[in-house]
C-alpha cells in the first residue's frame, strides 16, 4: 500500500487540526522502527502524517526494539546515528534523544552521551536494559545533570508481569527521581503506569509523565492532572506503535479545560525542552 498522501487526505487533516484547535509537541516517537519494515525510508511519511495532525515538533527516541532489550555499544551507536540522520533531515521538526544501555558501563555511557550531545541531542532515552533503581544508572544521571539533558524512562506498572529485574515500575522511577532531584525526568506511558503509577510519582517535583502507552483508557489523563497538576503531564504518542489521531484525542477528547489541554499538548513540552 502506498504511503503517499493525496490532497484529499491533507485537506481532511487540516479540518482535523481545526477540530483540535491547537498545536502539539510529541515527546514520545520512534520514527525509525524496523519492526515496521520501513527503516529510514519510513520516517519521512510518518513525519508528514505528524504535521498533518497539527504536530509542530517531535522527540525521536530511536529504535528501541530492533536489537532486543540489551543492545551492544555498536548497536546503540547505529540506532543513535539513525536519530542523528533524522534530526539532520528535519532540524526544525525533530529533537533527538540519545538511546542508552546503562549496563554497558560508565565509559560506554559517557562516550555515547558526549557523541550525541555534540550532535545536538537534548535528552536520554532508557528502555528495559535494566531497572531504573539499579546502580548502573548513576553515570547516566550524572551525564544528564552535567549536560542539562532530560531523561525519558520507559515505565509500566508490572505488578502482574513480574519482569522487574530489568523492567521499570513507576515506583522505581520515583526512586530514581528522588536520588537525582536535579535531573528532569519524563516517566513514559501514563496508561501503562495507571492510577498506581501517578500516585507513586506524585511527590517527585522533577518528574513529569507522558500520555503514551496502550489503548486510550478513559479517565487517566484527568486523574494525572488532578494529582500531578497541569504542568506535569505531556502529550506523547509512541508512534508508530500508536496512531497520532488516537493519541491526540486522548487529550483533546478528555474532560479537561482548553487551557490545560494546551499545556499538555504543547506548552509543557516546549518549556521542558527549551524549544523556541
Amino acid at each position, binding site marked *: 500500500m502506498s504511503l503517499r498522501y*493525496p490532497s484529499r487526505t491533507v485537506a481532511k487533516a487540516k479540518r482535523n487540526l481545526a477540530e483540535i484547535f491547537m498545536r502539539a509537541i510529541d515527546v514520545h516517537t520512534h520514527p525509525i522502527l524496523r519492526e515496521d519494515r520501513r527503516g529510514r525510508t519510513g520516517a519521512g511519511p510518518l513525519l508528514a502524517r505528524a504535521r498533518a495532525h497539527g504536530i509542530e515538533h517531535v522527540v525521536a527516541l530511536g529504535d528501541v526494539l530492533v536489537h532486543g532489550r540489551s543492545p551492544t555499544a555498536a548497536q546503540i551507536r547505529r540506532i543513535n546515528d539513525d536519530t542523528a540522520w533524522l534530526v539532520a533531515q528535519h532540524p526544525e521538526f525533530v529533537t533527538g534523544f540519545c538511546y542508552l544501555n546503562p549496563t554497558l558501563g560508565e565509559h560506554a555511557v559517557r562516550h555515547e552521551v558526549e557523541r550525541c550531545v555534540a550532535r545536538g541531542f537534548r535528552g536520554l532515552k532508557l528502555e528495559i536494559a535494566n531497572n531504573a533503581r539499579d546502580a548502573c544508572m548513576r553515570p547516566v544521571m550524572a551525564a544528564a545533570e552535567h549536560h542539562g539533558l532530560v531523561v525519558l524512562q520507559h515505565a509500566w506498572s508490572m505488578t*502482574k508481569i513480574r519482569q522487574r529485574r530489568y523492567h521499570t515500575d513507576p515506583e522505581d522511577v520515583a526512586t530514581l527521581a528522588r536520588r537525582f532531584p536535579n535531573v528532569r525526568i519524563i516517566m513514559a506511558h501514563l496508561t501503562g503506569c495507571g492510577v498506581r503509577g501517578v500516585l507513586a510519582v506524585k511527590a517527585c517535583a522533577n518528574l513529569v509523565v507522558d500520555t503514551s502507552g496502550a*489503548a486510550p483508557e478513559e479517565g487517566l489523563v484527568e486523574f494525572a492532572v488532578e494529582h500531578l497538576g497541569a504542568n506535569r503531564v505531556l502529550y506523547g504518542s509512541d508512534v508508530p506503535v500508536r496512531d497520532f489521531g488516537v493519541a491526540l484525542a486522548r487529550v483533546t477528547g478528555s474532560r479537561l479545560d482548553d487551557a490545560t489541554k494546551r499545556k499538555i499538548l504543547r506548552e509543557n513540552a516546549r518549556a521542558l525542552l527549551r524549544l523556541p
Partner: protein
Amino acid sequence: MNYFDANTWVGRWPFSFQPAHTPRTLVAHLRPHGVRRALVSPLDAVLAPSPGPANRDLLRTTRGLAALVPVPIINPGLADWREELAVVAADSRVRAVRVLPNYHSYRLRSRAMHALAAELTRRRLALIVQVRLVDERHEFHAMRLKGVPPTDLDRFLKQHPKLRVLACGLTRNELFKLAPEHPHLLADLSFVEWHDTLRDALTKASPRQLVFGSHTPFFITAASRAKVSTAAIRPRTMAAIAGGNLARFHP
C-alpha cells in the same frame, strides 16, 4: 459521517474510574461523536453469577431508544443458557448475543459453546465474541485473565462456517492472524492500533471485515473514533468501516 458502534457498554465497572452509563446517558454521550447507533451490552452481566437480571434490565431500559441495539450476554457455562437465550431472543430487537469466555471461564472450543453456536445458527442470530475487555496488563491485580486465544477462535470459526461472528477486542497481531484466514469474520477496531491504523489493518483485512468499535466507556470515545475519522483511506471504505459493514452484520 454516521457511525454505527459495535462495542459499547452500560453499567458499572468496579476496577476503573470510567463513567457508569445508563442507556440514556450513553446515547447523549455518543451523539456528539457522530455515533447514531450502537450495539450495547450490560457490564453488570460480566461479573454477576448469572447474566439474566442484567439482560432483562438492558432490554427494559433500552426500549424506546432507537440509537441503542441491545446485545444480551449469554454464558454457556451455566446450565440455564438455553432458557436465557430463549428469553432474550423473544425480543425482536435482539439479533446478536455476546459471549465473554475469559470472564466466564470456558473455552470457545467447549462443548457448550458449540451447542450455543448451533442454537444461534438455528435461530439466525449472530455471535459477538468479546476477546477482551481490558488490556491484560491492566486488569485488577487480583484477577488473572487473558484474552480469548486466537487459536480457539480460529478453530471455532472453521467449525461453524454458517454462523455470523464479530470479534470485539482483537489486537493488531491477532487480527493479522485471523482476518486473512476467515474472510467472513468481522472484527472491531477497539484494540487494533498502529500509526495510520486503518491503512495498516487493511494490508491484512478486507475493507468488509472491519467495523468501528469505540469500547465506550472503557476507552475515550473521541480517541477510538479518530482511528476512522483521521484515516487516509477512500471515503467509501471509511463509510463501510464507520457503519456500513456493521449494518450488514446487524440489519
